[in-house]
């Protein structure tokens, strides 16, 4: 049973080791095999951890047996394990997809590097979700970010390099702000262990350095999470990177950043510090609404589908932050469940768009004309995912929307309810741009409309993810069960 005891450590170590192995092995088939095995192992570990925490409560693991708070502690609670399942689950599905998709998008001699970076990124994201040490979060944040920059730059479009560079600059500023915040916290509390920090913050409540730390943390992570107006890097990064990278990052990178915010706001600072001392609530509400409307509005006018759905992501992140701003269990449940629901929806969309690019020659609205006939399954799947973004019953997005509206009603914010629903109508408008292009026009290129779907290796994972979007809109026992338990732990409960 000793392997089971070390599950928290293995969660990070397994994908982390796969990266240098992939580099050493060089041969792309072997590199793929190693990283695939590592990511599926990571998923298995995440599920086991989730089951364990759901059954018997928070699991604490001391790295190297150094006891916390001096040693680095890995701590898996309901929220953390939910994030682990999400990230590893997305990776497990995107990786088989990527093998087929990067053949057209990345030069062959770089494939093994792609897999190595993917493994690193995965390790970094998983590490953030499981660690209980503030500086350790920074380390993993940098690991995942740096590998993400490389992954984005591997895109075939020349602008991928610029997009990666832009993300690098903004991301580094964000990480730097984050580490300044952590430094200030360390200064005032003398510890880096999150649980210990929470305990010690009680004595230094409301002092200037603590408030400044909170501010630096918020701004720093907001850059990573693409909170409006710090979202500038996102559209380019998602539009020009390889499709597998867009699928993976859209589903995980920003979500893990939200996780960091939730962890610091509710587990470390405690909601009273965050929302009472600083005008965090109105500020988050305004920024969230800004994201929801500005990004949805811009999305409607995009001509390239990948950029369109990238802006859609910024809008959906607005929903996520809005739920957080309510500072209530329902609001936090909405936030956490939407991390998952939006993650799977966007992963599906970007995987499908990768297939579209391969078959239709690109993803602009002009290029996808008549796609409804040539790629019927892909088109239908994109529509279904679009319906999830709108929040139609029967899709995962509806569940998140339900809780978000419920949270707003609980706070008596009727006007917020109206605004949330109004932005859904904007989503109808940008999703329908795809519907009209795909179904109402004839294919621009050849006259034959014989169906030619993407390769099965690319189509199957994408359809699986799209099916998951519907599944989790109907069977919410896992998603809502985890999210509401996590919210209960975070607000008004012991850590």
């Amino acid at each position, binding site marked *: 049973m000793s392997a089971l005891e070390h599950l928290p450590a293995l969660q990070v170590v397994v994908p982390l080791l796969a990266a240098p192995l992939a580099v050493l092995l060089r041969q792309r088939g072997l590199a793929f095999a190693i990283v695939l095995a590592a990511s599926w192992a990571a998923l298995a570990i995440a599920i086991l951890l989730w089951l364990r925490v759901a059954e018997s409560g928070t699991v604490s693991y001391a790295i190297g047996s150094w006891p916390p708070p001096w040693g680095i502690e890995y701590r898996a609670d309901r929220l953390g394990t939910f994030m682990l399942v999400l990230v590893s689950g997305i990776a497990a599905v995107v990786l088989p997809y990527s093998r087929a998709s990067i053949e057209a998008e990345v030069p062959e001699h770089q494939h093994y590097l792609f897999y190595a970076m993917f493994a690193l990124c995965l390790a970094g994201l998983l590490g953030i979700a499981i660690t209980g040490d503030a500086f350790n979060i920074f380390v993993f944040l940098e690991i995942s970010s740096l590998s993400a920059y490389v992954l984005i730059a591997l895109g075939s479009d020349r602008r991928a390099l610029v997009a990666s560079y832009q993300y690098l600059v903004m991301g580094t500023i964000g990480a730097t702000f984050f580490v300044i915040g952590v430094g200030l916290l360390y200064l005032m509390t003398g510890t880096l262990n999150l649980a210990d920090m929470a305990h010690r913050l009680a004595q230094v409540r409301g002092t200037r350095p603590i408030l400044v730390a909170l501010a630096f943390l918020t701004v720093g992570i907001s850059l990573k999470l693409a909170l409006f107006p710090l979202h500038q890097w996102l559209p380019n990064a998602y539009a020009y990177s390889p499709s597998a990278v867009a699928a993976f990052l859209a589903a995980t990178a920003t979500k893990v950043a939200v996780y960091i915010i939730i962890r610091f706001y509710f587990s470390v600072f405690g909601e009273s510090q965050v929302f009472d001392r600083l005008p965090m609530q109105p500020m988050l509400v305004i920024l969230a609404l800004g994201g929801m409307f500005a990004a949805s509005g811009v999305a409607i006018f995009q001509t390239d589908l990948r950029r369109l759905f990238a802006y859609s992501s910024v809008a959906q992140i607005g929903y996520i932050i809005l739920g957080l701003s309510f500072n209530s269990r329902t609001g936090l449940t909405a936030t956490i469940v939407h991390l998952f629901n939006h993650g799977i929806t966007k992963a599906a969309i970007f995987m499908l768009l990768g297939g579209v690019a391969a078959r239709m020659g690109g993803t602009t609205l002009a290029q996808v004309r008549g796609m409804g006939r040539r790629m019927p399954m892909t088109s239908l799947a994109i529509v279904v995912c679009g*319906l999830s973004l*709108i*929040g*139609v*019953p*029967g899709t995962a997005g509806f*569940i998140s929307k*339900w809780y978000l*509206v*419920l949270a707003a*009603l*609980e706070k008596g914010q009727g006007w917020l*309810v*109206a605004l949330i*629903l*109004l932005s*859904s*109508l904007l989503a*109808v408008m940008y999703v*329908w741009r795809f519907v*009209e292009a795909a*179904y*109402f026009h004839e294919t621009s290129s050849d006259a034959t409309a014989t169906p030619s779907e993407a390769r099965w290796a690319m189509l199957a994972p994408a359809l699986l993810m799209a099916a998951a979007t519907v599944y989790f*809109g*109907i*069977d*919410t026992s896992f998603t*809502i069960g985890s999210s509401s338990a996590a919210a209960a732990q975070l607000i008004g409960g012991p850590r």
Partner: protein
Amino acid sequence: MTNESLILAALLVPLAGAGLIAAAGRFPNLREGVTLLTAGLLLACVVSLLPSVLAGGRPAAVLLEVLPGLAIAFRVEPLGMLFALVASGLWIVNSLYSIGYMRANEEANQTRFYVCFALALAATMGIALAGNMFTLFAFYELLTLVTYPLVTHSGSEEARRGGRTYLGVLMGTSIMFLLPALIITWSVAGTTDFTVGGILADKLDAISLGGLLALYVFGIGKAALMPFHRWLPAAMVAPTPVSALLHAVAVVKAGVFTVVKVIVYVFGVKALADAGGAAWLVGIAGFTIVAGSLVALNASNLKRMLAYSTVSQLSYIVMSAALLAPLSIVGAVLHIVAHAVGKITLFFAAGAIYTASGKTEVGELDGIGRRMPWTMGAFAIGALSMIGLPPAAGFVSKWYMLSGAMAGSQVFAVAVITLSTLLNAGYFLPIVYRAFFRGPAGDDAAHGEAPRLMVLALAATATATVLLFFAADLPIALARQLVEGR
């Protein structure tokens, strides 16, 4: 089969049918056969549920729990039973008509057409048999989405624009008004189950109750209450079989059905009356009745006229339900049936005229009765039903609606019903007269009756319209059960 499995069958049969129709796409005769078989099977399932409902039973089935406390659940009560009967019964007739129409006009994408039709019926069954508002909302949204390809069938620029209005108004109203109404109901009442006597009694004050009712009523865009009626004329861009079933029966009836269901089972008639009633709703519905008829009076395109006539007739149902009196509610329920058979006949006739002669304008119909006696005969019966004259079904429902309004001394409602009856006569009777008693214009090309299958369908619905005048026992029995609160 147990009642529970019959309910699930009512949903699965059209769903499975849709799949089989898609599979049989290459073989038109087989495909059409599957449609007819599916429709027949569905009617059989629905009819099998009837005996228990008439005896006072309320068959129920729970499918699955989506959120804690919110399940996809079904419960058959009198109103839902009636709606399910109407929709499934008319699907068979409409399928016969569609086969005739689609083949005569050599329409493209017929497989997609029949598949979406089957899916639309599945969604309609979900709405009719829903046991709580959450389930109803889910299937309501599904119906909008599934009928979009039907409305935009031709794929033309006009169809695309019509589709935008259709989707925009229906999704707009359901997302902005109906969804918050549902969530508010859940948060206030702790449940969304349809319960005799309503679930909101003593939970909200009178003003909030009125506000919530407004959210519901305007959120149910399919009831075409003004100002959210624009989707109906916009949807006339669809092929006539679509207009016939969906916009005379399934979609619009889902709208008014939901309104009546919400008034009776979510708010509760007594609770609403105690809170001061819904006089404002009577006013808005009354306005819609008259305004719709006025626009129809001026319409030159036949389908547009029928569309606005539908807008007007739907508000008869809403207005009578809003009067909250037993007789009026019976009238409203009866009108759901009467309008369905009457309007479908009219749309069938319009499609038959277009197929046989290519004519679409009201002014072109002089003398057409000589060439197409069956079609125009059926049209005349449908017109009588709209006006509310014997021997058509519309007379029975209007009788009840008028009696209910008079019994409650509702001067406004009586005036509206009377005025609109005159207006209806004003735009329907001249068409019938000119079709039979005027000679055709000089440059009129010779043509005969419509294809046999279409004539068969419209003769069937016209007969049903007359039959319901003489034998309305079943609908009246179900309506009585609804009103008596069982």
